[in-house]
């Protein structure tokens, strides 16, 4: 007797968000990238559609990232004083789908560069590469609120992904995105209730923005609370598939940043010979963290080590193979 395989039926799906705009669409990108649209849990192609593959960004800072582990010098030192060249290398040599620009030098403690300087950096990177851009501020809200509007205006038409909006500080970046039709990163501190509330507040400012939100649930690295962020993301995705529209957005995570904060990635081979060679250990820490988040439904991952990106690209190729029956 034939066995009937039970398949889960989902009521709803994740919204799709397009990043970037080509010349015809009013921008200058060579192509656009669409994320989201899932109508099933991650890679369960037999239960629904996974229309868009998860995409990988590499980080580009607008200053030499002095806090990064020295092992990154051999990959990036030749370009990291020039954000345009850095972005180009990430795309052409390392195969990044997207670039995430962190305007770290705007930080009053790191250089306090002006909004005009930030605009110039963004323009330079837009000229250097054709991929869609993710732009984030320095992380200090008072300063970031001064740079969102000029960047959004200068890059009008480019359909950026701009961030970050937080519960206590979302109006400036939302207004900047609304006025110039960019997408927005809505960041919550590993808290599903705040995640949903922030999406509602952004949507209340403009219903059109509701379909331009990318959720940043805040992720943790392997060994540093990955299970908390994983379960929040799982809950958000289940909510989205059950019809909760205020959670039905694609998700982004800073995998590289978090993985390269851990002692497992940063401790040198000499300091802990028993842990194996540092670079391999570190990039595997980053890749393993990324693999776990792929299973939570993440749509955009910002990576740091070029070889970790390669490993995850191959992993995504496998996961995107149709397994429907």
């Amino acid at each position, binding site marked *: 007797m034939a066995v009937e395989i039970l398949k889960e039926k989902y009521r709803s799906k994740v919204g799709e968000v397009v990043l970037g705009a080509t010349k015809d669409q009013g921008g200058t990108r060579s192509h656009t990238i669409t994320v989201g649209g899932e109508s099933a849990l991650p890679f369960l192609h037999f239960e629904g559609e996974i229309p868009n593959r998860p995409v990988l960004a590499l980080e580009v800072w607008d200053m030499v990232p002095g806090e990064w582990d020295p092992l990154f010098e051999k990959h990036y030192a030749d370009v990291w004083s020039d954000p345009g060249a850095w972005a180009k290398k990430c795309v052409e040599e390392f195969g990044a789908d997207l670039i995430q620009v962190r305007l770290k030098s705007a930080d009053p403690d790191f250089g306090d560069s002006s909004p005009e300087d930030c605009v110039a950096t963004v323009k330079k990177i837009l000229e250097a590469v054709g991929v869609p851009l993710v732009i984030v501020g320095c992380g200090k809200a008072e300063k970031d609120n001064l740079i969102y509007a000029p960047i959004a205006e200068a890059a009008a038409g480019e359909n950026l992904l701009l961030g970050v909006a937080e519960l206590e500080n979302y109006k400036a970046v939302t207004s900047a995105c609304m006025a110039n039709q960019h997408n927005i990163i809505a960041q919550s501190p590993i808290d*599903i*209730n*705040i995640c949903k*509330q922030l999406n*509602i507040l952004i949507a209340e400012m403009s219903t059109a923005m509701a379909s331009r939100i990318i959720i940043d649930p805040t992720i943790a690295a392997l060994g540093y609370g990955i299970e908390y962020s994983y379960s929040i993301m799982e809950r*958000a995705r289940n909510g989205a598939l059950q019809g*909760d529209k205020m*959670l039905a957005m694609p998700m982004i995570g800073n995998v590289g940043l978090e993985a390269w904060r851990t002692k497992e990635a940063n401790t040198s081979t000499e300091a802990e010979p028993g842990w194996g060679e540092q670079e391999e250990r570190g990039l595997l820490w980053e890749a393993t963290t990324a693999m776990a988040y792929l299973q939570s439904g993440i749509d955009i991952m910002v990576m740091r080590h070029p070889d970790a990106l390669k490993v995850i690209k191959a992993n995504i190729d496998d996961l995107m193979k149709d397994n429907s029956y």
Partner: protein
Amino acid sequence: MIIIGERINGMFKDIAKAIKEQDPGPVQEWARKQEYNGAHYLDINVGPSSPAPVEAMKWLVEVTQEASDLPLCLDSTKYDAIEAGLKLCKRPAMINSVPAEMPKMERVFSMAAEYGAEVIALAMNEEGIPKDADSRIGLAAELVATADAFGISPDMLYIDPLVLPCNVAQDHGPEVMRTLREIKLISDPAPKTVVGLSNVSQGTKNRELINRTFAVMAMANGLDAGIVDANDDELMAAIASARIILNMDIYCDSYVDVFVQRNR
């Protein structure tokens, strides 16, 4: 809980007058108001004293659909009126209602199969409303089995355990709660459940308080849908809160707004 808005009913004077004078104004206003306040279905009832129920039903369905895209719940004991309404519905409708009696079940279930309609099925028969849960569940099983014979899946049925006013038949309360729980064991997929919420408070002084208390208790016992006053804000807030407590919606500070605005 699925909210079936009760207000377009000839029992209310403004609707009766609107039907009589063929004035779509009040009907359409209530359609929009109920949708705005979070209704998922609109109940359509021509009222008990309509001289021409078939024509009145057709008119109500048409004018309601001009004002709202919500699916309709066609409420009548006259099945010709329901069938005339079903023919005009743009979205799959709900039939309200059928008791566990032949030949009424035959008529309603064949109609439901033909039009792809859901059915509110009453746990009562020729002998009236049972006193205890076991007899109600017996009738529910009969309704599920008969519907199945017409090719209607149990989850297309909304079983109404029938609640009596709490000042008249207090002993029915716990029986209704037990019925709501145990109906889910009848079949797989299980039938859904519905109550006409305001019945429970008829003739009492604290109608709204009793209605919303009953609503959240019934939800805790598995209730799926209610024919309710969608414009009772306290009731809608209580239902939204019960959904949070029961882990049916993910909490956020604006959860009440989210619940009532779902259709907007």
